[in-house]
């Protein structure tokens, strides 16, 4: 029975209300009971003179004191999620912010607003918010709270308050500049290991993503051919007498296996493909986080080098360096903790996803086996009846 056990915040395919989640939560890394439950559902399209866009309903149920109410319902569009992500990245440059579904899907999707695309995006957005809610630090972020609770007009006015586009650009320029300068020189061993790990992981996860898509494609082509295969036997049975039943039996088996293949494919596209895609995005995010840590290191290093050259204004520099050293230490600790957490979750996700896929394949084969075995049983019964009637004088 998979419905209850797996109905946690990370399987958004079931329309679970936040209240029902209270009893079914599976502990990830926090021993205390969860006090924030979020669902993303009910996509609605809005058509204005300028544009067409989709909003999603975000329902929050909470027992936290910081929240004025225990229940919130707001509507958010993709842009709002993007805003939230960038605010979180700003506030916590060396924390691992969960991935958002991409703006556009490169392969296969023709229409931006077809149902499959919207549903995939909805699930991913649901996961995004829940991962933030589960994060020991991010869950208390102020922008996150506003995202969950503010009405539409409140949110837009809040958005306008933040650092403007120009200053954001300035940050990016500085970031690029300092990345050129390094931060690699004095990088602690631990982070070099992380970098090496991420490079390989990134490679492998991308290949896995491709393999999974390939498998899906091959299964679909097999399904398409199978659809035609069964009916030919039925057609044949129309010209036969003695073997008509056997032919119809085979036709029915093939049709059932065809349906089982469809389920197998669905399992792949609902379980494996989204997870692998998320971890492809995660690998980019992690590389970014490591880079940002290096930048902070780089800032410190360049200031230290500058101090070595300047004999005057030592005190001023020392204060600055002191601040940077603290900043670096914080960043390093935050990253280390988050890294460990991420690895744990990754392992868990991979274990459960691949187990699910295997379970799925198992069910597929068991269904097909049962179909053919029952056909065989029906045929051999007939044969025995025939043999008996032949023996009689």
């Amino acid at each position, binding site marked *: 029975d998979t419905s209850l056990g797996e109905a946690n915040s990370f399987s958004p395919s079931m329309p679970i209300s936040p209240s029902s989640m209270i009893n079914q939560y599976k502990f990830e890394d926090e021993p205390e009971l969860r006090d924030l439950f979020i669902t993303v559902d009910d996509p609605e399209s809005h058509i204005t003179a300028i544009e067409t866009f989709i909003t999603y309903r975000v329902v929050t149920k909470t027992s936290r004191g910081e929240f004025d109410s225990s229940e919130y319902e707001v509507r958010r569009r993709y842009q709002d999620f993007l805003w939230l992500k960038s605010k979180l990245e700003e506030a916590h440059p060396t924390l691992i912010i969960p991935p958002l579904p991409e703006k556009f899907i490169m392969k296969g999707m023709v229409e931006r607003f077809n149902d499959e695309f919207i549903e995939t995006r909805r699930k991913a957005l649901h996961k995004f918010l829940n991962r933030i809610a589960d994060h020991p630090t991010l869950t208390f972020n102020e922008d996150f709270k506003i995202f969950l609770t503010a009405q539409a007009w409140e949110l837009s006015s809040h958005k306008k308050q933040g650092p403007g586009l120009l200053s954001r650009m300035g940050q990016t320029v500085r970031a690029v500049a300092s990345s050129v300068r390094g931060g690699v020189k004095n990088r602690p061993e631990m982070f070099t290991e992380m970098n090496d790990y991420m490079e390989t992981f990134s490679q492998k996860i991308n290949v896995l993503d491709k393999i999974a898509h390939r498998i899906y494609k*091959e*299964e679909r082509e*097999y399904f398409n*051919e199978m659809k035609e295969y069964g009916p030919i036997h039925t057609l044949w049975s129309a*010209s036969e007498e003695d073997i008509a039943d*056997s032919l119809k039996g085979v036709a029915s088996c093939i049709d059932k296996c065809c349906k089982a293949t469809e389920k197998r494919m669905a399992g792949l596209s609902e379980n494996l493909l989204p997870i692998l895609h998320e971890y492809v995005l995660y690998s980019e995010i992690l590389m970014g986080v490591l880079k940002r840590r290096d930048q902070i290191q780089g800032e410190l290093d360049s200031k230290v080098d500058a101090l070595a050259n300047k004999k005057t204004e030592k005190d001023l520099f020392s204060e600055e360096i002191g601040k940077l050293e603290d900043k670096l230490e914080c960043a390093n600790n935050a990253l280390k903790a988050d890294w460990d957490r991420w690895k744990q979750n990754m392992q868990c996700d991979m274990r459960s996803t691949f187990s699910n896929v295997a379970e799925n394949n198992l069910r597929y084969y*068991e269904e097909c086996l049962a179909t*053919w075995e029952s056909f065989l049983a029906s045929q051999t019964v007939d044969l025995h009846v025939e043999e008996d009637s032949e023996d009689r004088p």
Partner: protein
Amino acid sequence: MEDCLAKKMEITVSEAEKRTGRNAMNMQETYTAYLIETRAVESQSEGQCAPVDSLWRRYSEFELLRNYLSVTYPHIVVPPLPEKRADFVWHKLSADNMDPDFVERRRIGLENFLLRVASHPVLCQDKIFYSFLTQEGGWKEMVNETGFQLKADSRVKALNATFRVKNPDKRFTELKHYSDELQSVISHLLRVRARVADRLYGVYKVHGNYGRVFSEWSAIEKEMGDGLQSAGHHMDVYAASIDDILEEEEHYADQLKEYLFYAEALRAVCRKHELMQYDLEMAAQDLTSKKQQCEELATGTVRTFSLKGMTSKLFGQETPEQREAKIKVLEEQIQEGEEQLKAKNLEGRDFVKSAWADIERFKEQKNHDLKEALISYAVMQISMCKKGIQVVCLAKECFSKM
């Protein structure tokens, strides 16, 4: 069932060998020769085994044998030969006649052909067939000496008869339709089966890609490493398993193919009936018109328009002596014609009787064989599912330990 050759003699086509030689135009050619081994089935007492006789034959000699049998026994549904060229191939199979897998399947098909003939109550008694199995040299000359090629009906004649025959036995007309349907539906089935096989191959082989990636990924993981590595190994096993599965399925396809070709043999018997029936109808028509001519000459009345009648009107009546002579000739012809018609009628009825008997025998054989084939297909699917379950279970265990 009478004691047929198959019960007295063990027949196998045990080997295939590539040969080079010179053909009729003295050009070098490569062909495959097949070794036919025969051994008398004697009551094996005290472990005594009869000696094995063997000789080599090539495909064209099998074709010659079959042509001879088809012409000599037109009322029999003659077993078909395996295909001359590889048809209904999917991408992994070769369409090359020299491909070892094709040769191997052809070897089995040729053995099957010989066994079919040897277990046929009528065909197994044929001397030419017996010599094919036992006499290496001079067999071709022996076949040609029977002059069977002369007995063969021309295609044109047969086609003409098919269109013009007025009263064929309804059962043969139905049988012809059935054989058309059978041919069409089996062709279609084989084509789609080949495509399904192709796709299935793709699904399995792509899973093989997991193996290497998992292995490389496991190198950077501490806790997950073992699980990934062993799961990858199982994926490799899974991917490799499809080769044997599809090879087995080829034998199933060959069983269907045999009946695809049998459809042609059925049609040949129907055509022969139509030809004989048409011949009979033409002979009866000819006899009727001669009788009419005779009557007109005897009574002097011209009932139907005839050129003779016109010319006699234009050029004057014939003398009574001339008329007498003509009548006599016609009466002789009529008598001959009636005897011929009687013989043809008898021939026709015999043909229908013996052909239909063989067709009933064939129907039983076909129903039995095809049902067995479908059952064996189900068995293959079951085996494939069980193998799949086994491997996936093992992989699942590995994943759960990650």
